[in-house]
């Protein structure tokens, strides 16, 4: 059985195929309208989410399938002390595929020990978020026409930002990708990403604290939120949360072809004035998220049209 826990579970060929399917869905939505008729997706969200859960549910509905699940741990038997493994084994009796989000890192790996149906990791703590990465890859592909030969700046919380970790792992497999990591020292990219991902792949990267200095060389700026829920210490969060704020002034020296991305939700790391800038593509990125999840659901259910 195929599961998706980490973006590196997918080969670059798998990703090419999913992007091609997503683009076909965008062009021919009617062809897919009943593709998942009588199939059920369970969304098990042990942690709150707007975009990921709704985009999974919307994706399954657009494929003609049905959706069941819960949107917080308190409305499931987890509140009674049930393990992830038991919850997933139970839900395997009711659904054909599971998308799960959990605040604990590695929870999806615990889930697949007992799952009887394919499991998609919809985010596990600060660890991985492969469907956001697929969304990001589709966005880059749509906006730039290729997943090769560009410089991407990743800015903000690079330590706990799971979307960053997954995106770095995914992009490290493509030719000509240069990475600029922009963060305060406390939120730098973890060492294991450098030693296990960047160095073996021979990726060219730099680490800096200055967004202004990095800006002119960037083809893509990927901004992330400093996540309050990842801090044990509130004082640390308050000290670091406003380190980088992207506003029109900071974009003066950016390329006219820059693509500004953000996995959302944002708090104040991108000011609302930037939304009017044609280089701001983060809401388009949200739209792409539904199509790539449709492609993923089809693929994992073995439905090929």
């Amino acid at each position, binding site marked *: 059985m195929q599961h998706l826990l980490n973006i590196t579970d997918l080969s670059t060929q798998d990703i090419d195929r999913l992007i091609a399917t997503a683009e076909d869905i965008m062009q021919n939505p009617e062809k897919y309208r009943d593709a998942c008729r009588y199939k059920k997706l369970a969304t098990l969200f042990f942690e709150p989410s707007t975009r990921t859960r709704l985009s999974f549910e919307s994706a399954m509905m657009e494929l003609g399938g049905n959706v069941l699940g819960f949107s917080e741990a308190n409305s499931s038997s987890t509140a009674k002390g049930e*393990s*992830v*493994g038991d919850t997933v084994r139970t839900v395997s009796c009711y659904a054909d595929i599971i998308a799960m989000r*959990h*605040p*604990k*890192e*590695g*929870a999806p*790996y*615990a889930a697949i*020990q007992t799952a009887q149906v394919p499991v998609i990791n919809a985010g*596990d*703590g*600060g*660890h991985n978020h492969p469907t956001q990465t697929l969304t990001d890859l589709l966005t880059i592909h749509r906006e730039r026409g290729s997943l090769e030969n560009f410089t991407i700046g990743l800015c903000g919380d690079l330590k706990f930002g799971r979307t960053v970790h997954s995106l770095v792992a995914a992009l490290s497999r493509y030719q000509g990708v240069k990475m600029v990591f922009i963060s305060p020292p406390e939120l730098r990219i973890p*060492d*294991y990403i450098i*030693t*296990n991902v960047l160095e073996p792949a021979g990726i060219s990267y730099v680490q800096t604290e200055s967004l202004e200095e990095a800006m002119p060389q960037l083809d893509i700026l990927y901004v992330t939120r400093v996540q309050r829920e990842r801090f044990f210490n509130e004082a640390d969060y308050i000290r670091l949360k406003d380190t980088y704020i992207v506003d029109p002034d900071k974009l003066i020296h950016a390329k006219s072809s820059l693509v500004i991305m953000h996995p959302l939700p944002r708090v104040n790391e991108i000011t609302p004035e930037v939304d009017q800038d044609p280089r701001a593509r983060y809401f388009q990125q949200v739209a792409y998220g539904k199509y790539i999840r449709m492609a993923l659901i089809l693929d994992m259910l073995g439905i090929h049209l």
Partner: protein
Amino acid sequence: MKIDSIQNGIVLDHIKAGASMEIYQLLGLHKLDCSVAIIKNAKSSKLGRKDIIKIDEIIDLNLDVLGYVDPGITVDIIRNGERSEKRHLSLPSKLVNVLTCKNPRCITTAEPHLKSEFVLTNPEQRTYCCAYCDTEYHR
């Protein structure tokens, strides 16, 4: 210092000096009813000083644990007072229920009944990663 030779049992030899108690704990030797001798700081032509553990019974040993702690340890199986088998160890590719993940955000800390799994990611640096959360452990 003299320790009686064993008739049927296991000798763990060439243990790095000072590491025998860790091995004793990790292998759960304290649970055995038979005699177990720990010899610390024995003279060794190869290592200078070494530790030795003698177990007065042939038991199922978790060789992965030994290979993880020190792949240089040799395992001699003694039958009828003679060495009948000598096993050399290697760094195991996977460790199950040997290490505990120290990442407070890992699911294994919230659900301790889960079996712990660590995967060898860098043999030169003897680095293992938690199969759940990817947290690194260096030996």
